[in-house]
């Protein structure tokens, strides 16, 4: 292999690694569409985004919540996105997931996803309550070192 070929090979490998890393960094969750207001308009939802030290006591680093009331089509759209993200769940074990369906629709779910590339635990949560032919939906994304057991202990009302 001459010098030119060597440089070309090295450069090609490096560029391919760059492309792969960029693609990985941009890999997002489907429910981001909801948080970004692509399903229900932002001004029709209540949203909170908390990061950093504020969540230290919960062993979390990121907490993103969205609550809104919407019609059936949007409910189905959110549900579909949530199911899509559930494909990345850590496992079907009770310690990593709880879920309940009613009348063929997801009623609530708390799902631990595979860890982030930095090793943080990731969770997505969903709840949909019937409200006079409309639906009150709560959607949550969490990230941190807490386990699902920790979160249950912290947030379950006694």
């Amino acid at each position, binding site marked *: 292999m001459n010098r030119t070929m060597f440089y070309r090979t090295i450069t090609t490998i*490096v560029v391919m690694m760059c492309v792969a890393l960029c693609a990985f960094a941009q890999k997002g969750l489907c429910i981001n569409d909801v948080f970004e207001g692509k399903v229900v*308009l*932002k001004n029709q*939802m*209540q949203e909170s985004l908390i*990061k*950093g030290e504020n969540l230290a006591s919960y062993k979390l680093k990121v907490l993103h919540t969205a609550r809104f009331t919407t019609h059936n089509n949007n409910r189905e759209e959110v549900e579909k996105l949530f199911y899509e993200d559930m494909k990345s769940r850590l496992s079907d074990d009770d310690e990593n997931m709880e879920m309940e369906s009613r009348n063929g629709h997801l009623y609530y779910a708390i799902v631990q996803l595979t860890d982030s590339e930095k090793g943080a635990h990731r969770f997505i949560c969903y709840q949909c309550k019937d409200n006079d032919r409309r639906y009150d939906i709560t959607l*949550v994304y969490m990230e941190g070192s807490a386990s699902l057991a920790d979160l249950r202990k912290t947030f*379950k*009302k006694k």
Partner: protein
Amino acid sequence: MFNNMKRVTSENVQEHLARYMEGNSTQEELRLLKEYFGNTKDLPAELRPYAQMFAVLEDKPQTPSVEALNRFAGGQVPARRQRVRLWPLVAAACIAAFAVIFLTPPKHEENMAIAYVDGKMITNQAQAMQMGQEALQEIFSNGSEEEQLTDLFNAK
């Protein structure tokens, strides 16, 4: 295209000449013109200069020789262009970019607590925290009653 004038005749020679003068003649039309002026003996006086012109006209323009070009350039032959090798530079830039990405110490986690209600941003951290907690409590309060009773029992 100049399809209607395949052959050059005394009737259409002026049109052929006009096209030639405008630079619109094809090689084939030029050949026909040369053939016409070369073979026609009783040309009108106004066309005879053309006959002389086409008699000396070559089919293809002469290309200057290398020597002639060198003479034109004052005898100076330009130096051979140096080829710049880009691959080493690109490889070095990529490696440098990687070094910057991986060797830069990670930034501390950003602290943030904001909320949006009806499209309005609320920067009150306590309020944002409360909204987040309420959403979580709402979801985590689900589960079977049996499980909740078990939790309560275990808590006591």
